[in-house]
């Protein structure tokens, strides 16, 4: 992940709501506190956020409601203008783009999925998916072909003529996903896409999403307040609180090495064994003896639980995808993680 291959970069981004936020532009410093802002009649929805998102990466932004995650994603799409700082998309400053450039960027590079779907009620599923293509002036035949293809991709073939109100919530969100992908965007924003769905459908849609993600190489920013969802999907997780990012890291490191007490509290209920991979727990070999079968490094401890329990070696070797042993797991530590510390 070279510095040059960042698709989105944020530098000290602030979004302040209130009486006269435009007056604060250029006056916001990292150490500016909520109290100072409140005294002037303002509230920071996004405070001093800096992050880079690499090409092809999937970043999940997490936080409770009101933590500013939805505001942040809207800043990245410039649905709202930021108060201070800078956001670059593919090396171009988002804030200085003209209206035309911004529209062009959205027509070619960006797609977005919304929590309550944001479908146009008066258009059929097919017409909804074709809408972004229509807006950029694509001809009727090709846009209908493309839209049907997208509906087939999300498993809604045969429902082209249905209106949104005739579809279930999960189906409506499939239409939303198909629409966001219709223009073949490089950057895919998803704002709590599955929060409005009931748990069973949510699980199904997550699987669907993972399938699509595997098929399409896209840079993804995914918002959720559901930590299990984040763990299932993320390459990296950013945890937000009161508009600021508390920690941005891989799921394992978030769980194993929380940067702040807030993150620790946030992750305390998580079943670590489902997050931590064998490779992450492995100690360096340092000349110790290696014998017997090795555990695959990319599996979670939870998936290996039976094997670890039945293995009576104190140190179990771990091997990468190529079969080369990369380290050793302390069986006692692994059991602690799986079963909780011995009393």
């Amino acid at each position, binding site marked *: 992940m070279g510095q040059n291959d960042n698709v989105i970069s944020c530098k000290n981004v602030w979004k302040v709501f209130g009486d006269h936020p435009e007056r604060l532009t250029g006056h916001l410093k990292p150490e500016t506190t909520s109290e100072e802002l409140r005294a002037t009649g303002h509230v920071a929805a996004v405070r001093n956020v800096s992050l880079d998102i690499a090409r092809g990466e999937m970043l999940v932004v997490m936080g409770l409601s009101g933590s500013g995650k939805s505001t942040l994603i*809207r800043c990245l*799409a410039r*649905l709202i203008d930021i108060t201070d700082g800078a956001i670059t998309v593919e090396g171009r400053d988002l804030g200085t783009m003209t*209206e035309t450039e911004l*529209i*062009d960027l*959205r*027509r070619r590079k*960006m*797609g*977005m999925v*919304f*929590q*309550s*779907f*944001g*479908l*146009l*009620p*008066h*258009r*059929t599923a097919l017409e909804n998916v074709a*809408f*972004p293509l*229509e*807006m*950029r002036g694509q001809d009727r035949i090709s846009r209908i072909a493309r839209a049907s293809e997208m509906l087939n991709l999300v498993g809604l073939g*045969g429902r*082209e*003529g*249905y*209106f949104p*109100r*005739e579809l279930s919530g999960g189906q409506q969100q499939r239409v*939303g996903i198909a*629409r*966001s992908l219709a*223009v073949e965007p490089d950057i895919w*924003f998803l704002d709590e896409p599955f929060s409005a769905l009931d748990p069973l459908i949510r699980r199904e849609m997550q699987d669907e999403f993972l399938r699509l993600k595997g098929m399409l190489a896209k840079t993804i920013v995914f918002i959720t307040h559901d930590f299990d969802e984040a763990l299932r999907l993320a390459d990296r997780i950013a945890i937000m609180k009161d508009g600021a990012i508390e920690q941005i890291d891989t799921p394992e490191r978030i769980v194993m090495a929380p940067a702040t007490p807030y993150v620790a509290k946030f992750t305390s209920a998580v079943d670590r064994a489902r997050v931590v991979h064998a490779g992450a727990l492995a100690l360096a070999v340092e000349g110790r003896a290696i014998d017997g079968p090795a555990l695959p490094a990319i599996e979670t401890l939870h998936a290996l639980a039976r094997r670890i329990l039945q293995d009576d070696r104190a140190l179990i070797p771990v091997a990468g995808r190529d079969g080369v042993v990369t380290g050793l797991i302390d069986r006692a530590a692994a059991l602690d993680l799986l079963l909780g510390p011995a009393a």
Partner: protein
Amino acid sequence: MNPRLSHPALMLLGLALLLCLGRFALPEALIRLPEPLILPFADWINAVFAFLRDDLGLMAVTRAFSGAVEFCLDVTANLLYGKSRWPRLGPIPWVVIAATMGMAGYALAGWRLALLSAGTFVWIAVMGQWKWAMETLSVIMVAAPFSVALGLSAGTLAWRFRGVERVMNPILNIAQSLPHFAYMIPVVVFIGVGPKAGAIVTIIFSVPPMIRMTLLGLRAVPPEIIESGKMSGTTKWQLMRSVRIPAARTELLIGINQVIMQSLAMVVLASFIGMPGLGQKLLNLLQSLKIGLSVEIGITIVLLAVVLDRLSKAWAMKQPAHLEPGATWAARNRLLLIWLGLCAAGFALAAAHPYFAGVERKQALSLAVPIDAGVDGFIRLVTPLTDWLRWFLITWVLIPLRDGFLWLPFSAVLAFIAALGWLVGGVRSALICLAFILPIALSGWWDRAMITVYTVTVAVTIALLIGLPLGLWAAARPNRARRFLLLCDTLQTFPSFIYLIPVVMLFGVNDVAVVAAVMVFATVPILRFTIEGLCGVPPETIEAAEMSGAGRAQLLWHVKLPLALPTLMIGANQSIMFALFMVIIAAFIGTQDLGQEMQRALSSTDVGKGLVLGLAVAFMGLMADHLLTGWAARRRKAAG
């Protein structure tokens, strides 16, 4: 109520009482505003209008606009009743129009509406009222699209620019409380009389609800739909055309429904400025007391109102449904094909027999004779009662009350109004109320205004006495409540003019008839909001009270009524507004209030006087509105 706030209010009330008690000792200037203080508002308005008309050349603008309207009117008039103008195609045979309306009903809401809608037009034709009804409809067909276009653009401007909204809001408030006649006088000055003037006054009168609904609809579009539109790469114009306006469809269509209903109400009244059609016929028949024939016309107007309302509401509520995939062209255009077939059949029928093209006067059915006979019998039956009622009301209620209202020193009324304002909203409300009432005193129409106030007071009081118990009774069972609400809905679609028919029939032409008409018209909103208020009490609250062991009476007095009170106040407020509108319309059956003066201003085309009188009525309405909604809002806030 807050004792600290009520203190000055009590003092003001005391002052009002003192001024009344000490009236004999008061100087003349405190009883009626002395002549030199009366401001010539009418002359000022006339000067402004003369300036607009002569110096600014507004006449040319209005001429151009009315030219366009006239062209459209000629087209619809030719098509609907064969006026000999371009495109010289009409008249369309009545069977074809009836079939078209029936088809519209079927397409929008199914068989029942199709029958109602086609049946109405068959009734009109068979009763020989075709030409009048088409004269009326031809104006609505032109006026409604103009109003919708104007309202849509003005509403969009107000939505886009806060400043425009801020200016437009008070204007709309006043415009929606100005009585119908106040609109007619300036139009007569600029356009003259006749169908063109009728159409233009209709356009102006029906714009405000469209503006309001446009603003409401555009505001109510969910933000995610707009964001999804933006993320689809829309330009501002694309976003407006393809996202915002279609997403606001329901509100906009309800706006269109209101425009159509307002147009119908106005077009019927525009007979006062020479608009031919059903309204003029009704006016003539009522004035010559031909009850049977006026009932026939009344039925037609009512049927038209119901059909137009149901059709446009069905359109607003209609949700798109998908077609089976792979449907043939004929299946996709089934309704269109049926309609074309019906039209072809209609034209063939009309060619085969002239009866189906147009019903001649001598072929027309009439129910006038049996209706007259029935009404005569009924009246003979109830005459002892109505005569006694009339005598009792005039001698013991109306005249003493009217004299009482006229006896009040205007200073006492001002103090009383200020006290009410203070009670409701502190010093600010007191000042607002004074700002509404003082110009009426300054305009020199105080006595006339007091007669209007007296009529409205009496009518609304009786309306409350009837509407409240009836509403309580109706709300007791959900089915009954639903039926009554439907009845109220239907009654509210009738043009106000209709309410005059039964009261003239029962009481003749006098004060009692006016009060009765106003009272009937004002009862509808009270009944409606009483039912809605009582049915709107959350079921958990009622269950909680029942579990606390509340009896039925306790439940009503301690739970339902207090919770329904804010809604009831809205009903009372609307009732007063309706009463003010009606009392002005009723002027032509003989009153001595502002309405009668307004009719005089209309016949002498005195814009200044007409507008001053109209504004006086509007200010009374707005003051009542301020007091009642302010109070309801406070109650609601207190209730949480």
